[in-house]
Structure formats: structure tokens, C-alpha cells
């Protein structure tokens, strides 16, 4: 059986059209459809059907308060909807994952510890996930 592996380097990452790939240390795109229990007394075990989609994108970024960097990009997005686009290239295959109209509920504005580079963990929820 043929398998393929790739180094998990993103070639591009934009949040609200702003490139943040140079600040990102980790990202997870999750396609999620909520399960609805449709079990009846006729069943011998739980059975489910698909409900609403509730896609999610979580990422870790280095914090930077410099112009055009992490804080300046995200501060005005808290409590609003935006679009996140991540591009992955594996050999000749390019996949562009777009989570459109996703909601950013919160952003840590300070996350510091002794002897560490400051990072922020973000979660964009909802919206429509498309792959091209």
C-alpha cells in the first residue's frame, strides 16, 4: 500500500487576508459535523446522523505588537467573523483550505512567562470549510 508523508510546513497562512505564516508555530483545521442521536428502541446500539457543521481552526502564533504583526492583525477581529486560508504543498499537490465566515471569540493580549517567547492560542469556530 502506497503512503505519502509530508513535512507539515505551511506554504501560506492568511487571517483576514493578512499573512501570518511567519508567526505561526502550529495549526489545526478540523472539519466537524455534530452528531445527532437517532437511536430508537428498535436498535441494539446507538446510531447517529449528521447535524450542523461546526468547523474549527486553531492556531498558535508568536505574539508581536509590531506594526502589521500578530496583535495588530487580530485585535480588531475579536468578536467578529473573518476568513482563514491555509495552503499546504506536498510535491505536485497543492491544497488550499479556506474557513470562511468563522468567528474569533477571544484573543490573549498578554501571555508571558520567564524565559519564553510569548505565544497566543487562537480558535476560529463555525463558518464554511472548503478545499481546493
Amino acid at each position, binding site marked *: 500500500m502506497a503512503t505519502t508523508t509530508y513535512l507539515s510546513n505551511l506554504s501560506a497562512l492568511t487571517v483576514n487576508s493578512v499573512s501570518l505564516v511567519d508567526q505561526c508555530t502550529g495549526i489545526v483545521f478540523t472539519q466537524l459535523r455534530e452528531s445527532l442521536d437517532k437511536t430508537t428502541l428498535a436498535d441494539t446500539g446507538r446510531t447517529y446522523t449528521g447535524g450542523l457543521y461546526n468547523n474549527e481552526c486553531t492556531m498558535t502564533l508568536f505574539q508581536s505588537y509590531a506594526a*502589521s504583526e500578530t496583535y495588530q492583525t487580530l485585535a480588531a477581529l475579536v468578536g467578529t*467573523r473573518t*476568513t482563514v486560508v491555509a495552503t499546504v504543498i506536498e510535491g505536485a499537490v497543492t491544497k488550499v483550505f479556506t474557513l470562511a465566515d468563522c468567528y474569533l471569540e477571544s484573543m490573549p493580549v498578554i501571555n508571558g512567562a520567564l524565559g519564553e517567547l510569548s505565544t497566543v492560542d487562537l480558535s476560529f469556530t463555525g463558518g464554511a470549510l472548503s478545499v481546493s
Partner: protein
Amino acid sequence: MKYIINSPKVGTVGDEFEPAQGINIEALIAGGFIVEESTDKPKKSPTIKKEPKE
């Protein structure tokens, strides 16, 4: 109204920014990533007629 890119994080500075679906324009403007450019032509100042000679 059109938008001009003001940060290399968004694209080539000076190019027109065409927002894709779901892009939060207000946040980009607030962060200084793009600037608004009015496409309205400036109105001419009204000409002041001279008073007729008596």
C-alpha cells in the same frame, strides 16, 4: 470606494485590494493594512458671481 494595500503582509503595497468573501474590511482598515480611496470626483468649488456694476 476602493481599497489600496498599505502593508506587504496583505500584498503589493499600492495595489488595489479586492476583498474575498468573508474578509473583515473594517479590521484591515483599523490595523492600517489597507486604506480607503474615494473614487468620487472632487466637486468644483462654486463660482462666485461678481456683483453687477451699477
